[in-house]
């Protein structure tokens, strides 16, 4: 399975580069990512600006890196929070059944009932604009799918004979959940987490678009892609392409890593992997 290993290495490499870029570049390069230079408007990629410049002459490479920083923060934190909360809620509901299940699931209904963007708008509107309200608004609205997916899996798992064996061995409900049920649903939850990252990135830009997210001039990948639409129609491709790649490439790398992780979680796939 050489190609799998190769894919994994590439993913890991890209992720390492991304983390490095996000942490180091803003410290190492003392340039202002917001520096406007009307004279250098919409320059195509070249020596001075490897990724070109945008509509007010800001350097796209620098903005991409800064944007990656903000977007990854928003995406990863929101995805993590949503996944952890969703998995916990789903697993508890599924494993315990009865009234905890009903209560939790009605809570899920409650949160799903208010359209996401609407809930997001309110959450963000209640606070000053900034990163954390955005993260909160994305997290608050996105644990629901995970919770339901996890619960369904748990419901199906909990009648397996090996759960009987655990019960007979004296395992508490909690232990059954943590030791036997959760590991089995982790692949599903992990998939949701990875999908949530790019989703959160654009969700953030949608909020910004409505004036409720990050200030639109602050570099975030979603904002950049979004505001580059006009240039794209005018034939200037670079303001779209580079931020777009900056969203997609780390997402794919993350997906690659998560895929390998899920394969390791699955005992059968695992024994077929030779790492």
């Amino acid at each position: 399975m050489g190609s799998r290993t190769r894919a994994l290495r590439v993913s890991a490499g890209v992720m390492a580069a991304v983390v490095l870029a996000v942490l180091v570049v803003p410290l190492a390069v003392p340039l202002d990512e917001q520096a406007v230079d009307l004279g250098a408007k919409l320059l195509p990629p070249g020596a001075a600006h490897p990724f070109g410049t945008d509509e007010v002459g800001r350097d796209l490479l620098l903005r991409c890196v800064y944007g990656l920083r903000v977007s990854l923060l928003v995406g990863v934190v929101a995805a993590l929070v949503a996944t952890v909360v969703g998995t916990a809620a789903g697993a508890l509901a599924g494993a315990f059944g009865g009234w905890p299940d009903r209560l939790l699931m009605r809570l899920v209904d409650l949160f799903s009932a208010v359209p996401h963007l609407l809930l997001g708008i309110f959450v963000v509107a209640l606070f000053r604009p900034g990163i954390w309200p955005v993260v909160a608004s994305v997290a608050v609205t996105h644990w629901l799918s995970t919770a339901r997916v996890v619960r369904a899996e748990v419901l199906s798992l909990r009648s397996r004979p090996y759960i009987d064996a655990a019960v007979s061995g004296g395992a508490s409900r909690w232990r059954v959940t943590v030791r036997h049920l959760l590991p089995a649903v982790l692949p599903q939850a992990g998939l949701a987490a990875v999908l949530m990252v790019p989703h959160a990135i654009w969700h953030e830009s949608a909020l910004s678009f409505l004036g409720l997210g990050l200030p639109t001039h602050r570099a975030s990948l979603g904002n950049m892609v979004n505001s580059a639409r006009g240039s794209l129609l005018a034939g200037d491709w670079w303001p779209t392409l580079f931020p777009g790649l900056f969203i997609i490439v780390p997402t794919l790398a993350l997906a690659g890593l998560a895929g390998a992780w899920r394969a390791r979680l699955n005992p059968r796939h695992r024994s077929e992997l030779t790492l």
Partner: protein
Amino acid sequence: MLELRGITAGYDPRDPVVRDVSLTIGDGEAVGLLGPSGCGKSTLARVAALLHRPDAGSVVIDGEPARGWRHRAPREQRTAFGVVFQQPRQSADPRLRLRDLIAEPLRATGRRAEADTRVGELAPVVGLSAELLARRPHEVSDGQLQRACVARALVARPRWLICDEMTAMLDASTTAALVGVVEAYRRESGAGLLAVGHDAVLLERWCDRTVRWEPLTRPFTVSRGLRPRTPGPQTPDGLNTVPVIRVTQ
């Protein structure tokens, strides 16, 4: 004493599998339960192990009636039973290595410290090498997995053993070896045993007493009778015989 009193159990309250069955196992006694396939032996075994709530009747463990089932049963009552399930593949968590599978009851009951030594003791006895202990269920044969399940049943030193067709997928030598293991454990701990099986020769050799589950003549009037829900295909309909609780030895 483990007493099953007037157990009626099944999966549909209108049509129970087991009807009004009573069975008593004395301290340290080994009871074999024989019966046609599909008659409800496993169901009864699950009731006895407090894993399945009967529709009626009670389970009394050492004079104390079971207060709940599954998680609702107090942990001491639950862990008084070591259960070997009929199908090892289904009763092993596919994610656990055999070592963890065996140690799980100890870990689950907060006896972590004992786990390693106990697994170390049991593994050679049931015939599992260190190499096998490091594998996961799908990487071992059914027989090897069943050995791990036997070890799991013994690991927490239960007072009662319930073995549902423990040896069905084992060869004669392994059967003899595992029965030896169980018997050695019983000698040492004085545990009682309910062994469910089809192999009359084996059960009679192994157990103090064998109970045979046979078709009823008068379906609903015998209170201490054992009756199969479905007349096995081997029993021509209508040709029912008297219930027998035959005691050997």
